């Protein structure tokens, strides 16, 4: 089948339109978001119960650190970077999940993916606490993230199975399944609470409310690694995700290996959602809001939506966490409460928009 580039060239009598297949403006939006994120990091590092001076930044480089520099290095910077990394992971996971299920309402939180992770963690914290305690000390930090990943992965595969025999693109069945999974996870967590002792109860409560107080440099590093893997996968899968928006059959017809794509997406979503949750508990709605805001500005091309959703998610959660840390000084609110307060109305607005568009697809 030889290429005949000019077969039809002469025959097109109609005016050929000027077409650009690049993503217009996405680079500028990315630069803007990046700059805003840097400013927000700076603001987050400067604000809190203990005052930090500009001179403390310079003291970071010196051997003998001032008190303010210690606060920056030990508390504020890991906390701010942790918030940004968790937000980026949630935003990217949301964008990937929405591409996978071909629906803007598919959020890892609403679908029960994060609940699956929390459920697995609750089981490990209570019923299998003795097993976990028996492990070599070097393994222990990995137990909760691994359990979270397993729980998230299991939920993703259940959802994918459900999505296959439901109407393609139908979100109602997916959300109902997510509702059931959330209820199931709630029951398991409740059961764990029932049998937990005092100390276990405290960690469980922290988990279900969502807090970024568990920040530390190793955790930030690990999350950064997971994020890099997620972004790399996203860059590789963006074109195929665009094709998947046409529907599964049409995607296969233009050459996408749909089954492989789905498996990769599921593992990526589970990895990102689980790691985001593993040290911070349930933080909802970032995965829903970030891609939605991004699509509103740059359109639906996944080559732009995936990286920009990560940036927007980072910015959103960092701002939410800074608010959570500073409104009731010296105490702090669980950040999950702040994101839910903003996110739930956004979700309802989205629902209304989709209802207005009637088809239920877009």
């Amino acid at each position, binding site marked *: 089948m030889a290429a005949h580039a000019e077969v039809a060239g002469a025959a097109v009598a109609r005016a050929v339109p000027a*077409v650009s297949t690049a993503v217009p403006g996405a680079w500028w939006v990315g630069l803007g978001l990046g700059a805003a994120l840097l400013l927000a990091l700076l603001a987050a590092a400067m604000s809190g119960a203990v005052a930090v001076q500009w001179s403390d930044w310079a003291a970071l480089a010196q051997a003998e650190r001032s008190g303010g520099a210690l606060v920056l290095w030990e508390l504020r910077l890991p906390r701010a970077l942790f918030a940004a990394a968790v937000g980026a992971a949630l935003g990217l996971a949301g964008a990937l999940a929405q591409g996978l299920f071909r629906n803007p309402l598919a959020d890892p939180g609403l679908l029960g993916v994060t609940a699956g992770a929390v459920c697995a963690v609750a089981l490990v914290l209570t019923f299998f606490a003795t097993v976990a305690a028996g492990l070599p000390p070097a393994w222990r930090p990995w137990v909760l993230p691994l359990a979270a990943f397993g729980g998230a992965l299991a939920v993703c595969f259940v959802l994918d199975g459900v999505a296959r025999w439901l109407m393609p693109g139908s979100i109602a069945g997916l959300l109902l399944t997510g509702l059931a999974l959330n209820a199931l996870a709630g029951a398991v967590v409740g059961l764990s609470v029932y049998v937990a002792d005092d100390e276990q109860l405290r960690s469980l409560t922290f988990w279900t409310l969502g807090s970024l107080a568990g920040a530390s440099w190793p955790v930030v590093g690990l999350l950064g690694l997971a994020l890099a893997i997620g972004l790399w996968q996203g860059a590789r899968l963006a074109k195929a995700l665009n094709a998947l928006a*046409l529907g599964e059959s049409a995607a296969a017809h233009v050459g996408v290996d749909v089954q492989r794509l789905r498996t990769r997406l599921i593992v990526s979503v589970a990895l990102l959602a689980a790691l985001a949750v593993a040290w911070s508990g349930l933080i909802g709605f970032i995965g829903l809001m970030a891609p939605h805001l991004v699509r509103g500005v740059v359109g639906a091309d996944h080559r732009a939506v995936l990286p920009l959703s990560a940036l927007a998610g980072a910015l959103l959660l960092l701002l939410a966490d800074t608010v959570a840390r500073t409104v009731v000084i010296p105490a702090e609110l669980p950040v999950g409460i702040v994101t839910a307060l903003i996110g739930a109305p956004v979700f309802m607005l989205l629902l209304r928009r989709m209802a207005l568009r009637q088809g239920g697809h877009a």
Partner: protein
Amino acid sequence: MNAPYDLTAAVARAPAEAAAAEAPLLELRAATVRVPGREFGPFDLRLAAGERVAILGPSGAGKSTLLKLMAGERSAAAGSVWLAGAALNGQPLARMARRRAVLPQAHAVAFGMAVELIVGLGRYAIEPDAQRTRIVAEALATAHAAHLVGRRFDTLSGGEQARVQLARVMAQLWDVQGALLLVDEPLAALDPGLQIELLEAITDYAARRGHALVAIVHDINQALAGFDRLWLVQDGRLAGDLKPGRAALPRLAELFGVELQWVGDAQHFAVAVRRRSTAGAA
């Protein structure tokens, strides 16, 4: 329904005879499809490059299933399907994307994507694709969709969406020869003027490249005027492989359980459809 169609005169059909001598473009050898509770086939069919086939049959007869079998979307439970001399089963998807394209019946696209992005997806399997921008633009023009550039797909009307999907499929097979174009009744919901316009665009596009065209068609007049062969599908089997023309009318009437009346001469004609008289009601 009443206006006579005059597509044949407008379409150059040169490559058909030359290609017919070679191996068939598509061959179904006793291929069957099994879905829970039902079996379709066995289908034995041969199709040469450049041929234009209309698949006709009542609802639920298995037309879409036959099309999916030819597209490689459903694999044969027994028998085999061959495309351009190679078994369809197990061919790399990217390779298949250069040999056959499918225009779907449903148009829904998630997320309100831009028109040119969707058309560009037809070129997904081609890497690198230096001609992409030019081909996307020309495919849009050929599908009468040039004016839709820059619009969001989910803001388009049904007819406009059909044009964009057509442009996507055209872009996919734009620079190959003798490929297979499968069409799943995409025109049924459009107004008659647009139906003629788009069917003409499709047949003209296919003829220039020697692509074979297989389309599920509901309109008997369209089938008779725009195609070289008629495949009649009934109860999951191929009930007939006919030349279009006046002689095909009794079989078509039987297939749909209606009364058909030929109006006009061999070039300019229309077929009027009526409810079957009481004798046929059983």
